[in-house]
């Protein structure tokens, strides 16, 4: 019995550790994408990338950042669904909150929004690649997040 208990306990612990590791990895992922964004802006400042290239790369990175955050939001929303009694699809709910926490697109002190705004004056076409970063402070709720919200209801 003791052995079974230990196995069960060990197994559970292993699973939980895997979950934690996955979340950590995604957080690391997000950090990495932010760093990429910052590096891109630094290269643009130094004139190492041309404007169109910068806009394209930035759009790709912002999309990746969104993806990472959506995955995390899905996990946060889809995990302890029973406990999330207030999650009724309102943006301020736990699922939305998880996304919203980073919704200002703060990249280690640099506002992508501010940058996109500055770019908008210089090159409206380039900035158009970043509709959310510029106009909307809070990213649209992803399909995963909506699902999570429904599950909570």
């Amino acid at each position: 019995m003791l052995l079974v208990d230990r196995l069960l306990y060990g197994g559970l612990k292993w699973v939980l550790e895997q979950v934690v590791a996955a979340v950590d990895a995604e957080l690391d992922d997000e950090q990495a994408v932010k760093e990429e964004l910052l590096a891109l802006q630094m290269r643009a400042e130094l004139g190492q990338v041309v404007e169109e290239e910068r806009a394209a790369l930035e759009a790709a990175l912002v999309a990746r950042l969104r993806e990472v955050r959506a995955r995390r939001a899905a996990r946060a929303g889809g995990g302890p669904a029973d406990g999330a009694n207030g999650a009724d699809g309102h943006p301020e709910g736990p699922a939305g909150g998880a996304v919203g926490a980073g919704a200002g697109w703060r990249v280690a002190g640099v506002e992508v929004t501010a940058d996109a705004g500055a770019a908008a004056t210089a090159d409206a076409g380039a900035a158009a690649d970043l509709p959310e970063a510029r106009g909307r402070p809070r990213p649209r709720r992803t399909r995963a997040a909506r699902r999570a919200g429904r599950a909570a209801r």
Partner: protein
Amino acid sequence: MKAGPRFLFFAGKGGVGKTTCAAAAAVALAERGARVLVVSTDPAHSLGDALGAKLGAAPRRLTVRRGALYAAELAADPALRRWLRARRPAFRAVAERGTYLDDEDIDRLLDLSLPGVDELVGLVELRRLAEGGTYDEVVVDTAPTGHTLRLLRMPEVLRRLAGVLDDMHAKHRYLFESLGRGYRPDFADEAIAAVDEEGRGLHELLRDPGRCAFRWVLLPEPLSVAETADGVGALAEMGAAVEELVVNRVTLPPDGSCVPCAARVRAERAALADLRGALPGRPVRLLPEAEAPVGVVGLRALGRRLLGRLSAAPAARVPASAGRAVHGGSAAPAARAPASAGRAVRVRRNAQPRAARARRAEAAPLASQLASRGLRLLVFGGKGGVGKTTCAVAAALALADMRPRRRVLLLSADPAHSLGDALDMAVGDQVVRVTDGSSRLWARELDADRAFRVRRDHYRTAVDDLFGSLLRGARVDAVYDRAVLHDLIDLAPPGLDELFALLTLGEALFAGAGRAPFDLVVLDTAPTGHTLRLLELPATALEWVHALLAILLKYREAVALGDLAADLLQTARGLKRLQALLRDPGGARFVVVTRAATLPRRETERLLVALGRLRMAVPAVVVDALTAGTCRRCRRAAAAEARELAALRGLRSRKRARWAMLLAPASFPPPRGVDALRRWSRTWEGASA
């Protein structure tokens, strides 16, 4: 042959007559039979003007009756290049051995120009010049107070630099020895020791009363006295001795009755009493008001006066009439009611309170002369002591009064601040509100040292990480790295005042994303030379920021970019916006303040040329402190001023310039406090033209 020449420094606030005194003392010393070198270390040189000769970086011999007189105006940039060139291989080797930086990085950093270069190499170059000839005396005409104090702190900076280099190299030595090969000091070690020795030598020289003496020059005015007390205190703290205080341009009592002269004499007596109270026991030498002499012949008499023996009791040197009974510290009320102060104010039907409306109408003529559509930055500059601060405060008040919704910041970037003195209120590094509700004016005296410390502490971890990753072999021995790190971080860059003035301007005018904290900044600057350095600085600072960004990018595998990179990026953008603003003739304008006298007028001419080169718009030249008395002396002074004004007008038409000439009357005592400053600025002439 003696061990070396004796140095005599003339220090003090700008425009008090340091240059004339230094030149005159040099002439007199030479004509006593000595071999004398006189050097100016102020980036806005006027030594040539005083001596009536064209001077350059190499000492030029001038004709004197006896002895020998050489004169030079220090050129900082070539001096720094020369100094660096001789040490470059060694610095390169140390950086290459002690850090992760490669040749390309090191060369890039070594090739950058430095803010604060004048202070950094001033003493080193001074000594090089002094040792280049067999001089008995070296007379030094220094930059105005704040920058002179920085100059005198440079020996410590040199020694700290040597400390950083030595720590970097210590690791190299350690590695060498731990590999079992005995370490033998090479050229890099010698160069480090030489830098340390240079710093130590200069440090000792400045503190050896046998080899180095200071004379503090001031005017019998409250602002000048307040700055003298601070400056002499700072020198004493450093261990340097001020052998005497030279009070220049002391007014003698008028022959007959002359209201302005009498008020002036009273105000000066009060200021002298304050001086003696603040610095008791210091020898004080008084020089009577006279037109500044020019040329060796003209300077001769003043030189003898300056070197003549002072009697033991300083009070006895006060000209009999000027110094007799000194009345209490309280100054007489402003003696003259300005003619236009009582001018009827047109009443407009308006919901504003009456006082604010009146102020607005009265402020309009002056403010509209200075303002422009989209004005964000109004810089006040000019030779030291011409009244920049007082004029800047008066103009800031007028601009704030004219448009009550405009949020105006009055910022002082002169390390020797006097905003608080002019406003007669406590002003510090925190922004304080100056006016009541109807107009919105704030003031701040920038403390660059504090700003540097705040920023450094904020990014300490990031900077630690960065430097940690740049330093090679962190695993070998963390002790060396940590030592280098802390030395590096504490090594405040020279040119700190200009650098942080720039960053503060950026923060005040351009917020990251939202609304900027201020609509308009009125900047009270350090005297000419350093103001020009400030205006040139955005380009230099941007080069540094770009160099650091490039290095961060290059080593991003080793160190996360983090807050520091983000901040540098933000700074780069701020600098570019500031550069764009400075080039926008509607957005940034420069008001030149001067006096109707020969030396200030010549410096003004050079300043206007420099501003033209920098493409700065100049809406007005304010000629301050014009004589308005009725006695014979006042009339003579007014006639001399009229000649200078004519010369300025001639300059304006020759250059086809459009600046307005605003004439500000002398006021004794100088206006202090918001109300007095408002009244005073309404007496300016030319504002309505």
